[in-house]
């Protein structure tokens, strides 16, 4: 410290010379040094390492090292035939792959499903990348034109395409159809419900609240049961309604209630000044909402919406309970196949299904995180 003899000895007059910054260990080095700081930390580190080793090594052995890659039937996946401990029986997945993807959709017509998947991906990818232009047109194509195309392609019965009844649909096809319809059909309903709940009109807001709280208060399984067994009673006797359509109606109502709450959060985040500005410009209610409030609110809640979509994607598995065979249902019914009954069949099936569900959900959650970061830096109100 610089001394100042002219004044009181303990007050420094000059500037304090900056001390050199202590050498900072790299982040990795710092993290590593914390692993063994003190006996408790060392014990925790060792315990975690043991847990990791106990999880990763057997998983790796099961999935890759001990796995059987080629074979034609259960015999090829038995310990007695192979002569060593057997891991995953991948030929089982290969043999059943088409069924896991399409259910019992007629083999000759499966190109239609693939065409729908292809076009869907082609429209979805640019929609997800913020830098690609023509968002409005793209969204219109994905949310309005694509469903019509997919309906004609998948159901058929016109344009020379043979009719395929939904009873034979299954596997990944059902999973994706329910997820997509659940998202696309429930979004507009959810926007209306959220606006209704925030409305000044007492009857409208009471009804919106009652609707939202009802669907959020009951489990999805009961909603699916309601849709499958009760819905036909509510319709005129001469109407027959397809089993898949019933499930789609139930899922749509259910997910609309959840999405409405997410969107309401976005509506609440819009500052009053925006509404007052719109009013000063002479905009009416629908123009204020459609041109000023909703574009901002919906952009705000994209991460929340994507998280709801993940929940919906995972919840599609519940259709199993109303005897519909989605990906998980197909895999479960394949366990009963005597051709592939081995001690490892069940685990192999779960590994395959788990990998698909995890990959899709994880990718969606990373996307939500990415959008969240982007929006946080984009918008500073």
């Amino acid at each position, binding site marked *: 410290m610089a001394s100042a003899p002219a004044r009181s000895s303990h007050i420094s007059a000059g500037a304090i010379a900056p001390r050199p910054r202590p050498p900072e260990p790299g982040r990795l080095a710092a993290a590593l040094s914390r692993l063994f700081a003190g006996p408790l930390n060392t014990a925790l580190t060792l315990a975690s*390492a043991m847990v990791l080793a106990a999880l990763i090594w057997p998983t790796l052995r099961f999935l890759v090292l001990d796995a059987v890659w080629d074979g034609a039937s259960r015999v090829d996946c038995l310990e007695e035939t192979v002569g060593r401990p057997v891991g995953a029986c991948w030929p089982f997945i290969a043999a059943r792959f088409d069924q896991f993807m399409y259910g019992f959709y007629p083999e000759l017509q499966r190109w239609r499903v693939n065409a729908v998947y292809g076009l869907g991906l082609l429209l979805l990818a640019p929609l997800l990348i913020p830098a690609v232009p023509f968002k409005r047109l793209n969204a219109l194509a994905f949310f309005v034109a694509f469903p019509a195309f997919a309906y004609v392609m998948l159901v058929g019965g016109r344009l020379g395409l043979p009719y395929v009844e939904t009873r034979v649909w299954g596997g990944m096809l059902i999973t994706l159809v329910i997820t997509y319809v659940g998202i696309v059909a429930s979004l507009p309903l959810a926007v209306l419900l959220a606006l209704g709940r925030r409305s*000044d009109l007492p009857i409208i807001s009471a*009804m919106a609240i009652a609707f939202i709280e009802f669907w959020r208060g009951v*489990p999805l399984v009961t909603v699916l*049961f309601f849709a499958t067994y009760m819905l036909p*009673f509510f319709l005129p006797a001469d109407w027959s309604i397809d089993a898949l359509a019933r499930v789609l109606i139930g899922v749509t109502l259910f997910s609309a209630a959840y999405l409405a709450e997410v969107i309401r959060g976005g509506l609440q985040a819009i500052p009053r000044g925006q509404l007052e500005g719109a009013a000063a410009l002479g905009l009416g209610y629908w123009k204020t909402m459609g041109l000023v409030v909703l574009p901002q609110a919906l952009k705000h809640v994209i991460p929340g919406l994507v998280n709801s979509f993940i929940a919906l994607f995972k919840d599609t598995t519940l259709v199993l309970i109303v005897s519909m065979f989605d990906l998980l249902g197909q895999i479960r019914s394949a366990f009963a196949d005597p051709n592939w009954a081995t001690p490892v069949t*069940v685990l192999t099936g779960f590994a395959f*299904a788990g990998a698909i*569900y995890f990959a899709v959900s994880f990718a969606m959650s990373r996307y939500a995180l990415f959008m969240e970061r982007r929006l946080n830096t984009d918008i500073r109100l």
Partner: protein
Amino acid sequence: MTSESQRQVGPPRHGSAIHDPRIRAIFYQVVFLVAVLWGCYQLGLNVSSNLETQRIATGFGFLGQPAGFAINQTLIPYSETNTYGRVFLVGLLNTLLVAVIGVVFATLIGFVVGIARLSPNWLVARLATGYVELIRNLPLLFQIMFWYLAVLGTLPQPRQSLELGVAPLLRRLAESLGALDATGIPAALNALAERLAPASLYLNNRGLILPEPAVTPGGLVTAAIVAAAVAALLVLRRWARRRQEATGETFPLGRAALLLLVGVPLAAAVLLGSPVSLQPPELRGFNFIGGVRLIPEFVALVIALSTYTAAFIAEVVRAGILAVPRGQTEAAMALGLDRRRTLRLIVVPQALRIIVPPLTNQYLNLTKNSTLAAAIGYPDLFSVFAGSALNITGQAIEIIAIIMAVYLTISLATSAVMSWYNARIQLAER
């Protein structure tokens, strides 16, 4: 609507009432209400004509009729001759059992994982993050079926049961220390294992078998002593708080609580003998006699529900702790509070205020998710009622309405309590 409400500030315009926003608002609402009521009326007409043409009985009379099917787990006496009303009660109790036990385990795992995610120890934090990511990104039904089919379904027969508990660990330790036979340590460990063996659990393809606890005569006296200790502690706490407010002197309440809640029961147990005796299950022939058997469906459901919900609770806990600003901790330390008091008086109360509402939401989710029991055949309210009872009676409307009403009541009651709680802590803030 805001634009409309602002337009009405001026004096009402002359001319037609069509342009008066208040009248318009009433008109739109009446039209909407009439449309909804008309729709409901049409649906009601459809229902009554459909039920008539299909000759399905209506009303709740079926609740008094005998059910005629068996249920594989009942908490209250039940037989096939009992009524559907009794079936309802059995199912409801089974649902509540899974929910309560699931909530306890989910909370324990969730708090541990949530705190571990914030650990400065890199490996521990990573492991906790991995757990949360893996569990949250897999469907719950997938996990329930995984535990039921892939884990519990591959367990051995009762004769080759897996023994869980301290005794088998000690035996294995004794075995691995075989080289030290001369010192007598392995023999001592084996002897200890024999003493602890009655407390072991057995896992096999028929479920999880626990020793049956029975209260000994001394146990009742011990319970009375413990109750007295708790009462004494409450009185002591009041006195200590009053004294601290009056004089500023603190009282070592933590140590007193330890003495009263742990020391006193322990002393009573030593003097009067163990308050609870364990009746170990016995392997006879091909099965266990005695003990409490938890069916595999129950075990799988509890494991899946609690590990799944725990991943969400972990995120809630982490967010709650992170939401307490660092300045709070620093200010507490500047005031001279030690680390424990800082946590107990400053951090935890504020974090809990943020954690409790979403935590309740997770409990509610767990309860609603317990309906997935239907997929593996655990007899919860949904699967006995919407499964067996619906198939036999065909009264879909009444049965689904009852089930929905039960879950709706649970949900709405919980959210009512939550908004009361929120209002209370909001007031405390100002």
